[in-house]
């Protein structure tokens, strides 16, 4: 990057299925004020504001215009970003590019979704091709169900393995005061929850949440002057998939799919050869349990077909050697426009040592986050404690 970029502060709302007490602007404003306070700055000092949110998921269009008073963008440069589940990470990515380029010194990035207000399913069906796939669009659920059936058929994993992911996420969420599904569940509970789309059960899927997240990015000079615990964005990579090629769901695909391509590029940039050792914590975007197991493999935390062994051995537990989603992840909280930003913000909290109850019990110097969205693409972000890490 041309200039180093740091996260100098952030904040989030609590996440819940119902937020009748606030309108969209009021909800966004909660996260914005927390982020500004955390960064020790005010709206007047912010150079530009980027808002991430899915178009029409709230039943309204152009939230960047609607929510000016909530975001604080009045009279400032601003952009709206809409890229599916990746939105939150894309927004940070765009913000980081703006700071790295030297155009702005301080950029506020916001992601939010008030899912209860809209018809996410109907609007999402618009992602599918009108002639080719819309009439049998199985939504995200159908996609991840096929990923699960492919995973089991090829690698020999069982439903118990996905249940382990379901339990880990919700037990971690219980340690995170902001999480939506703080469930004290067991593997039995997960295996007995209602079947939605074989092999995906109720507890294998993410909830529909309302919530917002915001982070403040700054250039190196500002960050060092203003912030006691800046978290550095060391690398960001994005990779797209081809709209019609659905083989990202098949664990035996031979193609270099988006996730592997993106991780490969990011690792090369940082000189990472053993990601499981290089990074101290991971926050991945897992809308379904099976997706987390596939992330283990696509990120190279283990070999192909070995992801379910990691969860089986507890390797990715909050106190394991490769902690994944100590926050509870997307499985516990999915306010779409904020979800991918929450991955980055939660990873930053881990590096700062400010994650509270879900702080991983080891020295965290480097963290890695992923996102998922649209017709399958990803934004990956590597964070570090110092510029030497």
């Amino acid at each position: 990057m041309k200039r180093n970029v740091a996260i100098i502060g952030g904040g989030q709302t609590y996440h819940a299925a119902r937020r009748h007490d606030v309108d969209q602007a009021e909800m966004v404003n909660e996260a914005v004020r927390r982020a500004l306070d955390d960064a020790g700055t005010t709206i007047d000092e912010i150079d530009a504001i980027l808002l991430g949110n899915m178009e029409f998921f709230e039943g309204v269009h152009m939230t960047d215009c609607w929510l000016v008073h909530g975001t604080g963008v009045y009279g400032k440069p601003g952009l709206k970003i809409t890229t599916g589940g990746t939105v939150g990470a894309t927004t940070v990515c765009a913000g980081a590019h703006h700071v790295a380029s030297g155009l702005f010194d301080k950029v506020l990035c916001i992601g939010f979704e008030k899912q209860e207000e809209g018809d996410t399913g109907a609007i999402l069906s618009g992602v599918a091709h009108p002639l080719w796939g819309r009439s049998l669009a199985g939504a995200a659920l159908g996609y991840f169900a096929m990923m699960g059936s492919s995973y089991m058929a090829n690698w020999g994993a069982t439903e118990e393995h996905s249940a382990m992911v379901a339990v880990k996420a919700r037990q971690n969420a219980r340690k995170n005061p902001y999480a939506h599904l703080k469930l004290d569940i067991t593997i039995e509970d997960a295996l007995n929850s209602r079947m939605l789309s074989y092999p995906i059960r109720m507890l294998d899927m993410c909830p529909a949440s309302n919530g917002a997240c915001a982070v403040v990015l700054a250039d190196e000079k500002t960050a060092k002057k203003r912030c006691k615990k800046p978290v550095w964005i060391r690398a960001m990579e994005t990779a797209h998939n081809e709209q019609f090629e659905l083989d990202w769901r098949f664990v035996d695909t031979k193609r270099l799919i988006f996730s592997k391509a993106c991780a490969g590029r990011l690792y090369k940039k940082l000189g990472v050869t053993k990601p499981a050792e290089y990074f101290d914590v991971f926050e991945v975007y897992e809308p379904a349990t099976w997706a987390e197991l596939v992330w283990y493999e696509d990120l190279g935390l283990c070999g192909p077909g070995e992801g379910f062994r990691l969860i089986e051995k507890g390797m990715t537990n909050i106190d394991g050697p490769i902690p994944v989603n100590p926050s509870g992840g997307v499985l516990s909280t999915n306010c779409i426009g904020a979800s991918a930003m929450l991955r980055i913000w939660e990873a930053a909290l881990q590096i700062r040592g400010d994650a509270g109850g879900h702080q991983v019990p080891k020295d965290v110097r480097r963290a890695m986050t992923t996102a998922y969205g649209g017709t399958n693409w990803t934004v990956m972000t590597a964070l570090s404690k110092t510029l030497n890490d």
Partner: protein
Amino acid sequence: MEEIKKYEPFEVDQHITAQSRYYAGRMGSRFYIALRDQQKILGAKCPRCNKVLWPPRSTCGVCFSELTETVEIGPLGTVETFTVVTYNEPVQPRKAPFIYAVIKLDGADTGMAHFLDEVDFDEVHIGLRVRPVYARERNGNILDIQYFKPL
């Protein structure tokens, strides 16, 4: 092109139907409840800008202050600008012709867009003094004010 056969361009007509429910939040709920139950119109006061904003909101868009105080505005107001709508559109709530006006209620610093009825199209003008006509059945939305009319 080596294609022998010509294929007609293929088009399909489809539609997407989406349901939604918008929540008015803290300030919005106060406004609509006061309108529905007491036929009072509220604005939000920004102490820093010393302005009264309609619709009421929790943050001042200009100075970013948190707003908690509401004040009663109107019910009388002044037409700031208007238009006579003479064409029909499915999204319009009424059949043409009708008047849309922006009305600055007494005590407010921002205008409210609403219908203006009981006035000849020739006689409507900027500066016209108007008052609201409330709906008999009020449900907590902006049509609890049915329309404005001249004094």
